[in-house]
């Protein structure tokens, strides 16, 4: 009964109620959006690589190593020798390794040289293995496999010849002498795997045959004249590794970090990701504070709207009193109005946040390579909703107490 009155009263003031609900919804959108994007990125990043215990690269920062080796963000400064890789690949504590060699690109997409282990052992989001949507794994020197996004965006198909560029985007140096053939396309994984082109380690060497000084050779050797037996892999950028036992991981990490023949860095991906989140948490806190301030403004807008309407509503209060409504029911009516406004605002805001997250997910992943997972309602979102509705209800006490007093003091005089 009182609830119906509250609804109808708000509905009759559609414009102001709507604006107030909108401003609260907007602040909830910001609050929840910041939180969900943070969480979505975390889940997305964490889902990109699983079952890998260590990432090994040249001595350097652990975060850059993680970012370039797995997420294709940034570049490797140094390489590690293939001999070192071989040493650890055959280490008794090691279950498998995936070598990674990077440095070239094709129309904005990274080219990653790796071997069969990649297709065999790479896992994402728990236990998902890579699968080919079309074609086969690369075998020949000039075979390439495309990530699903690469194939979709460039409209490539199996059998197509592609020319890779030396270095990253916008490079003038093209490996025009050695066109690659697309032999396979990976299934969609919703991770950065989709945004790269995969060639063999020997293919990478072949491409750079004669490039030892970082520039094209004066007389390039056509691809058709290069044979696998002429090539040997000398360096890779990094490698992923899985140990036979969890305990082995820490020992091996220590062993790699103190490996005498070559300075190396071994990182545990999950721990390094934690470092990344703690770096980003300052930005998260700042954004959350700003969104919180917007919420306060939204609630104050509501208070203003309800409080200003009080004077016009003295007559309404008097009528409701003659109809036998208790003063405390009048109080309830006003509290309900503020609660409804803040609850509607909060619900619409949360819904909008999820809608936005759903809509930007694919573009963000495609344009920035940041994996953004769809994540459910978290405790933090629930707290935000409770806080918004609670604060709305509490602020509602101010006009409600005034209305209660009017109900008692004005009696039949109002209006």
């Amino acid at each position: 009964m009182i609830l119906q009155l509250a609804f109808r009263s708000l509905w009759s003031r559609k414009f102001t109620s709507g604006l107030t609900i909108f401003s609260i919804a907007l602040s909830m959108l910001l609050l929840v959006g910041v939180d969900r994007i943070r969480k979505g990125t975390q889940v997305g990043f964490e889902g990109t690589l699983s079952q890998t215990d260590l990432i090994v690269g040249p001595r350097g920062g652990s975060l850059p190593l993680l970012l370039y080796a797995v997420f294709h963000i940034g570049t490797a400064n140094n390489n590690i020798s293939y001999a070192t890789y071989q040493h650890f690949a055959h280490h008794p504590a090691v279950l498998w390794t995936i070598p990674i060699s990077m440095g070239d690109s094709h129309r904005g997409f990274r080219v990653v040289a790796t071997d069969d282990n990649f297709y065999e052992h790479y896992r994402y989001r728990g236990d998902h293995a890579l699968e080919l949507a079309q074609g086969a794994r690369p075998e020949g020197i000039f075979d390439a496999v495309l990530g699903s996004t690469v194939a979709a965006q460039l409209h490539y198909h199996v059998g197509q010849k592609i020319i890779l560029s030396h270095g990253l985007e916008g490079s003038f140096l093209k490996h025009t002498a050695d066109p690659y053939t697309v032999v396979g396309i990976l299934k969609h994984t919703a991770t950065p795997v989709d945004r790269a082109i995969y060639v063999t380690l020997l293919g990478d060497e072949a491409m750079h045959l004669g490039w030892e000084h970082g520039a094209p050779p004066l007389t390039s050797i056509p691809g058709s004249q290069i044979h696998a037996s002429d090539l040997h892999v000398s360096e890779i950028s990094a490698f992923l590794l899985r140990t036979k036992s969890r305990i082995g991981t820490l020992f091996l990490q220590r062993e790699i970090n103190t490996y005498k023949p070559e300075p190396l860095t071994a990182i545990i991906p999950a721990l390094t990701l934690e470092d990344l989140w703690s770096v980003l948490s300052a930005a998260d806190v700042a954004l959350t504070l700003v969104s919180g301030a917007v919420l306060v403004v939204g609630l104050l807008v509501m208070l203003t709207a309800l409080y200003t309407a009080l004077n016009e509503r003295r007559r309404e209060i008097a009528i409701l009193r003659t109809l036998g409504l208790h003063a405390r029911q009048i109080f309830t009516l006003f509290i309900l109005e503020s609660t409804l406004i803040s609850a509607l605002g909060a619900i619409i805001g949360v819904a909008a946040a999820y809608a936005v997250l759903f809509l930007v997910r694919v573009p963000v992943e495609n344009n920035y390579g940041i994996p953004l997972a769809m994540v459910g309602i978290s405790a933090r979102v629930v707290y935000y909703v409770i806080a918004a509705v609670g604060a709305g209800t509490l602020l509602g006490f101010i006009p409600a107490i005034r209305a209660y007093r009017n109900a008692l003091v004005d009696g039949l005089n109002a209006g």
Partner: protein
Amino acid sequence: MEPAEAIHLQNAVFGYDRRNPVLHVEELVVKTGKRVFLYGPSGSGKTTLLGLITGILQPQSGSCQVLGKEMTRMSMSARDQLRGSEIGYIFQSLNLIPYLTVQQNVALPCHIHARRRKNIVAPTVDKEVERLINRLELDTHLDRGVKKLSTGQQQRVAIARAIIGKPSLVIADEPTSSLDTDRQQAFLELLFEVCEEAKATLVFVSHDKSLMTRFDEQIALSEVSRVSA
């Protein structure tokens, strides 16, 4: 069992602060079933008196019996209950809740009080609203907003709301002063008829003596109250 007196005030004193009473009624009696004209110029304490009768205000001293119940001995919510279920009230103007439709305004007492709902003539509240609106010759859409109605129409909707569910007492505070003279007569006629049908006692308050001859009894506030404005 209906008490013989609908209203009986004795030595009822009221003031917004204790030392300055604005109203002191020595004795006021309204018999059950009568149509009473309560005369008082503006500022004579009419609204305060109606506040006492409806139980919105409490006298500081004296007694105030309404429909056989001693208001001074009742809790505030018991008085609210009595007012809502037994008393219909019509203001001078702006009687209606602006954000409700005609239908919702008239049905309001039935939704608040079970006793009003129980006393309806038609089988459902909706039908009862329809019946009363037809009875009051309002040819308006029931689900229309009340803001678009003319003053005369609004006052008749107010009658419908005051009378729905047959309250024992109907109080009208200057209900005709916002109407022109022709309509005043028609309005009064309708009010009398529906009060008759509901067997309700009617207390009609006005400063306009031209209407008073049509009532069973006339009381001048200045004669019952010792405090003059």
